[in-house]
């Protein structure tokens, strides 16, 4: 048992070391950023971290919240694992952190919503509030909605609303192909597309509804061959990351001539791996690089540039999450409105809040905690120095607006039945 004692001692010292810093730092309001910082998805989490850090620095330099209290982003690496996220959540709570934010992985978000709900129920005096900036499973603000969860990204159905609106207005499209990753999100995309196309353009034929294994396909040519065989004029895909890049590359190579409506063609790291295959792809986002040019707001362009200078690594990883700025600005408002940093008060202050962002007016749903925001369909084309001024990730291709869905038009029927404390 000698060794056990030794280990116990070691454990004790390290645990003390790890926790000792919590005693001193009551001053700033800390927000735990729980996302992958290592492993295969580390780059995505890293970029998110930088976005939040940049916004926190900006807010702090403008005077902080609640009359001078600073914001601090505390990163926690969850390796995009639900289990590790729960461990990190406990870790954050132990350190006295009451606000968490996360975005990558529906599995992680689902686990966190559940865990926060249970924690708050079991520890009403130590409640925690969770801001979701990117996990888009509709259920999180519908049947699984929870008072302690706010979402700042448009969910699948909302984005599909924007895409199908755009397709509706393009009469030349009468055959659509759906290709998605074989998991919950991909299935949600496919289901939404089928439902909405049927409502809006019953004449359109769905000529393919393919699910491929997520993250396992090395070469999409067989799939592209199949799309080609179907004769589709438009393809809708929810693919992201490598699955998007590889699909894009195969499409370009085979010379497939169809309109690609994607969720994440501009997703972090995707353009740089696709290179010239970016040309012509469409994406749905709440913000894009050339919005400031199109709407002639040089101030916003400056904001984008100042981020890229600090964290953009020479334009390789530029500002991407338009909504993180929105979220942080609304958070400042909510703190100030609530007059305290109590999660419950902040949550109530956030409900129904309206805000004008650099991409339009947004509203936080009071009933379901889902942010309503305008959505843009943009198409990647070669930069021309004029309207297509900025490219993504030094590819030479930048987005240009093709269609816009207004804030209120993105709303979908809500099935949320929230219990409030």
């Amino acid at each position, binding site marked *: 048992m000698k060794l056990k004692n030794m280990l116990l001692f070691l454990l004790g010292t390290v645990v003390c070391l790890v926790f000792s810093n919590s005693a001193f730092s009551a001053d700033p309001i800390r927000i735990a950023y729980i996302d992958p910082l290592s492993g*295969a998805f*580390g*780059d995505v989490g890293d970029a998110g971290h930088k976005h939040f850090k940049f916004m926190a620095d900006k807010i702090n330099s403008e005077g902080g919240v609640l009359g001078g209290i600073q914001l601090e982003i505390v990163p926690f690496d969850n390796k995009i694992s639900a289990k590790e996220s729960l461990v990190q959540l406990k870790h954050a709570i132990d350190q006295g952190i009451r606000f968490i934010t996360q975005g990558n992985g529906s599995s992680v978000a689902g686990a966190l919503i559940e865990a926060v709900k249970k924690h708050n129920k079991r520890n009403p005096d130590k409640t925690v509030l969770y801001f979701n900036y990117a996990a888009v499973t509709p259920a999180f603000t519908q049947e699984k909605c929870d008072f302690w969860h706010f979402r700042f990204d448009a969910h699948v159905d909302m984005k599909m609303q924007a895409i199908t609106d755009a397709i509706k207005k393009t009469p030349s499209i009468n055959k659509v192909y759906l290709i998605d990753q*074989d998991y919950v999100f991909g299935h949600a995309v496919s289901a939404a597309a089928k439902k909405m196309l049927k409502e809006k353009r019953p004449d359109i034929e769905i000529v393919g509804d393919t*699910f*491929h294994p997520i993250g396992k396909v090395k070469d999409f040519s067989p799939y592209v061959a199949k799309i080609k065989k179907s004769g589709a004029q438009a393809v809708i895909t929810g693919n992201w990351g490598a699955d998007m890049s590889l699909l894009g590359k195969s499409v370009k*190579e085979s*010379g497939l001539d169809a309109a690609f409506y994607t969720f994440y063609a501009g997703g972090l790291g995707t353009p*740089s791996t696709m290179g010239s295959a970016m040309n012509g792809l469409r994406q749905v986002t709440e913000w894009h690089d050339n919005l400031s040019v199109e709407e002639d707001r040089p101030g916003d362009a400056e904001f984008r540039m100042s981020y890229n200078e600090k964290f953009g690594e020479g334009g390789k990883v530029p500002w991407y999450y338009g909504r993180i700025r929105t979220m942080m600005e609304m958070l400042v408002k909510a703190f100030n409105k609530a007059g305290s940093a109590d999660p419950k008060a902040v949550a109530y202050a956030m409900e129904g809040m309206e805000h004008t962002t650099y991409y339009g007016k947004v509203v936080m749903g009071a009933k379901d905690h889902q942010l309503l925001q305008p959505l843009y369909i943009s198409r990647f084309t070669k930069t021309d120095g004029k309207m297509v001024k900025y490219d993504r990730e030094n590819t030479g291709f930048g987005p240009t607006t093709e269609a816009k869905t207004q804030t209120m038009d993105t709303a979908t029927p809500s099935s949320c039945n929230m219990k409030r404390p």
Partner: protein
Amino acid sequence: MEFYVISLLNSLVFGMLLFMLSSGLTLIFGMMGVLNFAHASFYMLGAYFAFQISQFAGFWTALVIAPILIGLLGAAVERFGLRTVHKHGHVAELLFTFGLAFMIEELILLIWGRVALNYQVPSSLDFTIFRLFESDFPVYRLFMLAISVFIFVVLYLLLTKTRTGIIIQASLTHPEGVGMLGHNVPRIFMLVFGGGSALAGLAGVIGGNYLMTSPSMAILLGPIVFVVIVIGGMGSLTGALIASLLIATLQTFAVGYDYSLIDLLAVFNIELGPEPWFPDLWRIKVENTGPLLPYLLMVIMLILRPKGIMGERES
């Protein structure tokens, strides 16, 4: 028709790339009995090295230099790592390469970061060579095919026609006997390990830009390469070739079919109730089984014919 021809060509390209990777592994296994878990990591390193070199000296230099560097690295791993653990047996060797794979991935993260690299097909090879029916066939695909066929031919000639090749083949059966005839077997081992790694590196150089160069590329391809050498018969090059093409064809063609068990039952006029037992099972389509097939094939093969298609012995 178009679909079949294109798919056949695609299977051929992917299959030959797979063969280039697995040929090195199968030689290493055949000679030393080492299942090299880090083999796919050398493939990944090949892509990263090529990216780095092509930044300074262009793709064509990288095509030559990167595999050589990987080969030297592989030789060093054999000389200073594997030889040390050899006395602890095959399990220790296997675990050593397991740890090595882990470390290589971590070092790649450290040096090149977590973002997928912008390693693109060189512009001199970035055009369409011919149009088949309605589809473009990119020249780079043909280039990959040419390189891998070239490698196959070179490897075949090297192994059957040269003195070194004969020594290597002989070492597959009686390494001691080869040593006794005055050939330095440890050096041969080092050479084969280095050569096998170089082949993996070359696959990385030409595959990395075509597919994607990211820290997860080793994990993605690693297990498949194992499947190839098991199905082909451990230590058999011909087997590895057949298995590579087989797996590539299976995976490519599976995509084309969206039949499920429901359709099968429909043939017999059986209809499932609204809530069948195991609802998922009936809905699985052939096209979704792509990732499953190689492993299924491998397990079945190990049960029915553990030697593999062309193997002459069990592990």
